[in-house]
């Protein structure tokens, strides 16, 4: 059985580099234009920004609580809840950094669709983390006596095909949108594509590491 966790530190380094790049893009954008993200004030209601922030915050509080409740019999359940928040934050930060970079390179300004994309990316993170946790919980019962680390590794590998197939379908649709969806859809499709690629990687490699740290 392939041991994903064994090579974990390299995945953590890769994830760390991506986060560092995202933060750098946001900081450089803040220094050059005064804001971490150039906002298209003509096409964005201030309420949209506010609502996105509140919805993300509510999700960041309620989903870990839900995780704790759903898997309350499992060992290390608090770590599971914490990992859910970390993965959601990671998956959200990277599209922010990407957009800040595109703002500097191509003059992209965050509009209402950007905030829609952020909430969708949060949804996609949940969509990948919860089935993985369910699989770990299931395997914990069916493979009693197996070390926790092995159960996590087994679960990640068993989910790998389904995760990859789902995300490949998403990527095919988003690439089609990117190339034939027109200018209006381009930033939305690009942000979602970055989000999907990022969370495909994180759900397989980063989550497994966080769960076994």
């Amino acid at each position, binding site marked *: 059985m392939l041991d994903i966790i064994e090579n974990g530190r390299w995945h953590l380094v890769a994830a760390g580099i991506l986060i560092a790049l995202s933060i750098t893009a946001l900081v450089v954008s803040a220094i050059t234009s005064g804001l971490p993200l150039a906002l298209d004030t003509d096409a964005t*209601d201030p*309420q949209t920004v506010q*609502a996105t922030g509140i919805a993300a915050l509510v999700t960041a509080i309620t*989903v870990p609580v839900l995780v704790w409740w759903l898997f309350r019999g499992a060992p290390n359940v608090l770590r599971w809840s914490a990992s859910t928040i970390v993965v959601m934050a990671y998956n959200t930060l990277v599209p922010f950094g990407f957009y800040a970079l595109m703002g500097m390179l191509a003059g992209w300004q965050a509009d209402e669709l950007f905030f829609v994309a952020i*909430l969708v990316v949060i949804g996609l993170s949940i969509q990948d983390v919860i089935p993985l946790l*369910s699989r770990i919980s299931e395997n914990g019962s069916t493979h009693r006596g197996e070390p926790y680390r092995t159960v996590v590794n087994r679960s990640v590998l*068993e989910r790998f*095909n389904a995760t990859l197939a789902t995300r490949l379908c998403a990527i095919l649709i988003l690439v089609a949108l990117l190339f034939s969806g027109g200018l209006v859809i381009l930033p939305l499709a690009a942000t979602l594509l970055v989000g999907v690629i990022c969370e495909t990687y994180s759900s397989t490699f980063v989550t497994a590491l966080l769960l076994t740290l």
Partner: protein
Amino acid sequence: MRKSTLWQSIVSVLIIALAVLVVLNIQHPSWVQGLLFWRPQGEREIDWLYGVDLGDTHRITLTPDEEGKPSADQMQATLETVKSRAKSLSKTDPMVQLLDDNTIVVQVPSAHDPNAITSTLQAPGLIEFINAGTEYPTTRTVETTLSKPQPPFPTLEITGTQDTAPTVYETLMTNNDLEYIELRPPSYGYYGAKFRFKPSGGKALIEHNQNHPQEYICVTLDKRILTCALATQFMETDLGGNVEYPVVIEKESAQTTAALFRSGMLPAQLQVDRVEPAGPTPGQETLQKLGTAVIIGLAAALAFLLAHYRLPGLLIVLALLVFALLSLALCKILPLPITLATVAGLGAMGLTALGALLSIVERLRNRTRDGQALSRAVEGSLSTAWPSVRNTHLALGLLAIATWIVGATVAAQTIRWLGVSMATGTLTSLFATMVFSHALIRLIFGSEAIQALLSERTWLLGI
């Protein structure tokens, strides 16, 4: 066949048939419209509703009248009034923004007559009850003792002759004296409209009628007469002493009057600066490109599923088509406006459905590969996948409801519709993955002929 499979199959067929009927662009039978019990009578037509970004709209730019220079507070109040009026003109959310402190930009989705929109947006919204004396006025527009604001209707013509100086009618009451306007169901192109007065207004009307029992009172909107009647003949007083004035008004005038009353008078007079097609590309063009791209991407994704998963892949494709069909049907009947945000929300939930279906199919393949009998593998896969599917839908449902409630609470319509579309998608995804696909998988793999075929040709299972 298991009893539950039979019921799941019957329910699936009925719901899918109803969804097909709803999605088709046909004249829907009255019984289908009758199912939309939450909508008022007369508003149960089943049609697509497009939002600002995907519908063909005009961008209308309004600025204050050159004569008046409104303060910042007045401009803010004017913006709120314009927002309320734009909302009354559209079945879905309009876009109204204040730019540069004195420019209001309005986009009303699915409204094809920009002149009609600008007339309503600019209208001062002044409702007056005037004393017309003993003779019925001969003109449709009148002058009153309240000289301003001037009527903004460019298409109105005075129908009476005006050889002499026009009569200036005494204004008895205005919007400020009204409590509400209630519209009654339309009949023969007319609405019954009931004006209810505040206590002070009601008292003034009673006093006037006592002194002028045989004189007409006319109701005007921005100096245009809507209706006239002898006040003593029509005035009503309810048991609580509240004064009401029920009249009959042309349907469109009644709707406009009620909408303008609800939105309030315009604090600053506005003029139309520009009317132009909205957006870098018109909404219909974006919709067309979006449709083409989705079809290309979806075709590639479905081809991959069929090629990689074979027969189970076909079941996944069918379940996804059911998900799409039900989501579209719900968009039409709720109605849920088609915007890029709602498309993104439904797309995300489509991926949830796909993830759930793949989790069933992957388990089925693994169990079959491990040598389990097909019927046992099917039941084992369906039952072990259920907790994962349930938990995922529960968590995403939570996100959808949080987004919906927060969007509605802070009046961020884009976020609110995203939440609604995700909640809708959660329900349709649950149906497609837990009801339809369960019935289909058990029907297909429960068949002895299929089992015999698959035992010889395991490649059909994608193994």
